[in-house]
């Protein structure tokens, strides 16, 4: 039998992609065709379900794959016919994912995601289908596929607005995964997913942190370390991702596009492209202007940090049966010490735990030292720290020990004492300070650093000669006094308020002088006027100030969250008012037999706190001025320092945020420089942070011109012109007519006379 001719219509119907296209355009007319395809799908599906893992023929797999894709694409056109389709796919995948042919399996996953995108099924259904597979499947490729699909689904459903319901269910699933079986490594998937979503700022709430917290308390090493790493590096990763987003390339060059539209053929497509480019640029502009999203770090969102730190410490570090190796233990220790330092927690046994590891022979002792320093804060009893300091100075700091060891020890001592100066004893300090005469630069610098620290904190502990003029003077004035343990400097007020007061006073004096009034008269009207001006000016000022950030409303959810950026920032005005009021009350109600000294002290305290904040409401203009004055003061303080080095050191100290961890590099100090380096490291150091690639000046200039959207010169164009295109002209030049030659020669003579093409009339 010869080949039967296939009709054109029949051929088209057999082509699923074209049928799919036609159905999308006109679903009603192609219902019959779809019905027959659907019947075929059902027949093949039933056949396939006889033995899903071991189908008898390869053709049916291929046709099933194609049909699944086809039906998934058009299922939104015939919801009544394909009502069972998603369930069939889910059943197929859920029950037989281990034995299905890989390509078919991928197609089913893709089709389910497609159905989700077409809103045939909802996100929770999709995730409930895919997530159990992610955890249970042995196939690596399927896991990768599922992970990316789940992630992209979560991203897309959170793209416009946060989908709280979905997030909550997903977080619950992950939480249960982590907590249900603490010994299994399945929790890793929860960690991966949470970390990725955290990085992309899709999940920024306490529940995500809770998942990680539970992961850190798991019993599987991988899960523990995954959770701990998140706390140590998750926020930095998030910041970096945000930065990367913001300085992505600026999209299409709008000038260039506009230029091209002017030259090239005009078409609807080009027009659309231009419009699209303009839209993206606009969007980008708006994004740039948008206020920075307020995100709290994971460490701040922790619920019950004390319990968490205690659990981490007792389970992973103190427990004898903990199976973590040294490196993993160090990571956990780092987290515990950061928590302790940041939230000022009290875990007394932590410090005795350190005692064992503080010997120079201990591997990676510097990170132990860094952790120790990090876990110190002003509420740690000095009794717990003194033995540690003694041990460090005995083991590390001696003439006999190597210089790098001594440097590390001194630096560690300095970092600890910076956080709790009371831990140091006088003899020990004086001993250590003597090392500033050391020949080694690292040791010398470290010892000097320690000395400088105590000049600021407690100069009376230093020898008289070491105190320095400034500190000695201040000591005599009674300005520096090392408080007792537990004593905290409360209240204060608004930072720099006294500066503002002084400035206002000055201003008023100037104005009075202008008017010719007595300088100390009070004028209420004038003050009120001034206030009004402050409020009035404000709006105008805000409008034209570019760098002022917009306000973001952050609704408090009941519990107080400390968002202070600075260690020594004072609590807000309100508290101050209360305090002073209380003080006053105390003062008045104080029994008659209260000693005169007490009364005097209270009064002094009151005097120190500026009255400005308690008597008036500060206008926005005032606040702006305050900020300015504060900056000025800090700059002048830096400039007025005697030595450059000291100011550099101070700025380095100030640069470090309270939330930032203490690194090993800081403990090692200058000693790191002496270590033998590899060739690569040397080269990198010599290069510094200069640009890697050398680019010629011409190239730079060209690039600059191109970036500005400028064209090339005629000369350049001529130079770049294709050689073959210039051939014709060259040939023509060879057989010019006599007249042309004459013209050329005459031109030459003429130019000669004029002196060049443009003529040098000046000469």
């Amino acid at each position, binding site marked *: 039998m010869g080949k039967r001719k296939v009709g054109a219509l029949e051929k088209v119907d057999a082509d699923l992609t074209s049928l799919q296209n036609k159905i999308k355009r006109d679903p009603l007319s192609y219902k019959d065709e779809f019905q027959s*395809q659907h019947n075929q799908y059902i027949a093949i599906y039933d*056949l396939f379900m006889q033995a899903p893992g071991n189908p008898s023929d390869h053709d049916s797999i291929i046709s099933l794959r194609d049909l699944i894709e086809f039906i998934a694409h058009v299922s939104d056109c015939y919801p009544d016919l394909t009502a069972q389709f998603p369930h069939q796919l889910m059943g197929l995948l859920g029950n037989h994912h281990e034995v299905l042919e890989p390509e078919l399996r991928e197609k089913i996953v893709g089709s389910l995601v497609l159905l989700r995108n077409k809103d045939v099924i909802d996100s929770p259904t999709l995730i409930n289908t895919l997530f159990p597979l992610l955890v249970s499947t042995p196939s690596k490729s399927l896991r990768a596929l599922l992970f990316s699909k789940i992630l992209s689904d979560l991203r897309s459903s959170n793209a416009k607005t946060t989908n709280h319901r979905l997030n909550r269910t997903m977080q619950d699933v992950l939480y249960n995964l982590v907590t249900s079986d603490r010994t299994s490594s399945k929790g890793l998937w929860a960690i991966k997913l949470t970390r990725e979503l955290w990085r992309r700022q899709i999940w920024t709430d306490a529940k995500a942190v809770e998942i990680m917290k539970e992961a850190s308390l798991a019993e599987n090493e991988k899960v523990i370390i995954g959770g701990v790493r998140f706390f140590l590096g998750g926020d930095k990763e998030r910041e970096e991702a945000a930065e990367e987003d913001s300085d992505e390339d600026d999209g299409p060059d709008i000038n260039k596009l506009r230029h091209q539209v002017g030259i090239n053929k005009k078409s609807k497509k080009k027009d659309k492209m231009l419009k699209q480019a303009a839209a993206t640029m606009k969007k980008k502009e708006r994004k740039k202007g948008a206020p920075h999203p307020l995100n709290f770090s994971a460490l701040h969102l922790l619920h019950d940090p004390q319990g968490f730190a205690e659990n981490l410490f007792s389970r992973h570090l103190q427990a004898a049966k903990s199976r973590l190796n040294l490196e993993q233990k160090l990571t956990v220790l780092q987290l515990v010490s950061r928590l302790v330092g940041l939230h000022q927690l009290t875990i007394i046994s932590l410090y005795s735990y350190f005692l064992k590891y503080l010997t120079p022979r201990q591997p990676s002792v510097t990170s132990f030292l860094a952790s120790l320093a990090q876990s110190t804060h002003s509420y740690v009893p000095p009794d717990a720290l003194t033995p540690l300091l003694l041990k460090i100075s005995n083991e590390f700091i001696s003439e006999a020990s190597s210089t790098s060891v001594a440097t590390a020890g001194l630096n560690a001592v300095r970092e600890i004492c910076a956080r709790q100066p009371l831990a140091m004893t006088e003899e020990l300090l004086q001993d250590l300070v003597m090392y500033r005469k050391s020949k080694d630069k690292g040791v010398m610098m470290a010892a000097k650093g320690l000395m400088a620290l105590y000049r600021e904190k407690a100069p009376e502990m230093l020898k008289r000669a070491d105190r320095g003029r400034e500190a000695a003077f201040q000591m005599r004035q009674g300005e520096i006094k090392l408080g007792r343990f537990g004593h905290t400097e409360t209240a204060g007020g608004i930072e720099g308020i006294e500066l503002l007061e002084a400035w206002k006073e000055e201003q008023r004096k100037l104005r009075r002088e202008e008017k010719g009034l007595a300088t100390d008269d009070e004028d209420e009207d004038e003050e009120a006027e001034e206030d009004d001006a402050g409020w009035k000016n404000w709006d105008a000022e805000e409008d034209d100030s570019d760098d002022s950030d917009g306000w973001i409303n952050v609704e408090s959810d009941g519990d107080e969250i400390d968002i202070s950026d600075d260690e020594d920032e004072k609590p807000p005005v309100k508290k101050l008012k209360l305090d002073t009021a209380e003080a006053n009350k105390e003062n008045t109600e104080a029994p008659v037999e209260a000693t005169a000294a007490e009364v005097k002290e209270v009064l002094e305290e009151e005097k120190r706190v500026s009255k400005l904040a308690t008597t008036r409401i500060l206008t926005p203009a005032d606040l702006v001025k305050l900020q300015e004055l504060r900056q000025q003061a800090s700059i002048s303080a830096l400039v007025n320092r005697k030595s450059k080095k000291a100011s550099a050191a101070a700025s380095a100290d100030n640069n470090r945020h309270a939330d930032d961890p203490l690194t090993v590099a800081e403990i090692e100090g200058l000693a790191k420089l002496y270590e033998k380096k590899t060739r690569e490291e040397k080269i990198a150091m010599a290069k510094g942070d200069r640009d890697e690639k050398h680019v010629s000046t011409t190239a730079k200039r060209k690039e600059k011109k191109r970036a500005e959207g400028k064209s090339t010169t005629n000369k350049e164009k001529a130079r770049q012109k294709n050689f073959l295109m210039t051939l014709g002209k060259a040939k023509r030049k060879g057989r010019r007519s006599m007249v042309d030659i004459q013209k050329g020669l005459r031109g030459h003579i003429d130019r000669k006379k004029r002196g060049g093409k443009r003529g040098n009339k000046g000469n």
Partner: protein
Amino acid sequence: MGSSAKKKKEKKKDFQKPKLKVGKTKPKAENFTSTSFQAKSIVLKQQSLAVTAPSTSSQFLHHLSLLTSKSDTQRRDSLAYLTSTIAATPPGTPLPQPAPTIISIVEPMLTHPSNGVRQQALKLLISLPHTDIKSHVERLVLRTQAGMTNLSNDIRSFALDVLEWLLETAGDEVVCSPGGWAKTLDCFIGLLGLKKDAKASWTSTRTISSSGGGEKLYAKQLQTLALFVRVGLADRRDASAKGAAREDAWFPLRNTEQHMLPKVSNPYGYLNLFGIPRNDKTAMSEDVDDRRRIFVSTSQPTIMAAIYQAKGEGGEVGRAAAQLKKAVAGVMKGFDDI
């Protein structure tokens, strides 16, 4: 300017001699291709040195394995060989390979794109003993249904041939198998290009049959449907009269048949203990009354309308339609009374 200089340089590179150094191996050429390989074992192909020809069973096995070959002619030839071998085995002696193995390999070829392969596969199945076919009807029915819904007209019409053969060899098993009745009826409706919903009936035409195949195919479809209906809906109560006679033989005992060991394969299949849950389309309908009910409720009106239309056309189609009508009327006679 840049390009020509570059080209020159590149050209020069081709003729540069590599410098040889003492104590160093000669540098390899740029276009050097490594032809070394690693293998656990190296098999040298050799012609068989056996003097005697391979046994029939090994040849049979070989041809069975050739059925998965890519080439259509190869498949067809192997099928032909297998058919002749099976036909040559005297009845009573076992086949070279068990029938289930053969069926599971041959059955997918019923929807093969090549006509020759399909025909040969059917021939092979026909040559197999009927008892074996009866126990594997379920898969064959599913395959036939897949063929009936196939896009290609050839495969669709061929599937009718297969169905006819199945009905003749194992009619009862076909209509009783899961999905064998309700779903096959659905397939027929799709095949005839009928619509179940009468809403859009005024524009309904026989889209599929008119798109290809023509009158002959339509007539064939109607004939097969008639056969299917006759097998499926025929009342076997007269057969039970014979059973009653047997009852008498067992006289003091009653309903003995029901308590004997079942003789059919998979007697508890209707319980569906291990399969996927069935819906009403794929459910088993072992009872004639069951099948009648399904027929009346789902497809009778559609089919009657089609018969009416086809009878009007006359010719071969008209005759086939009349036959179908007679068949339906014949088998439904008793049911209407009830």
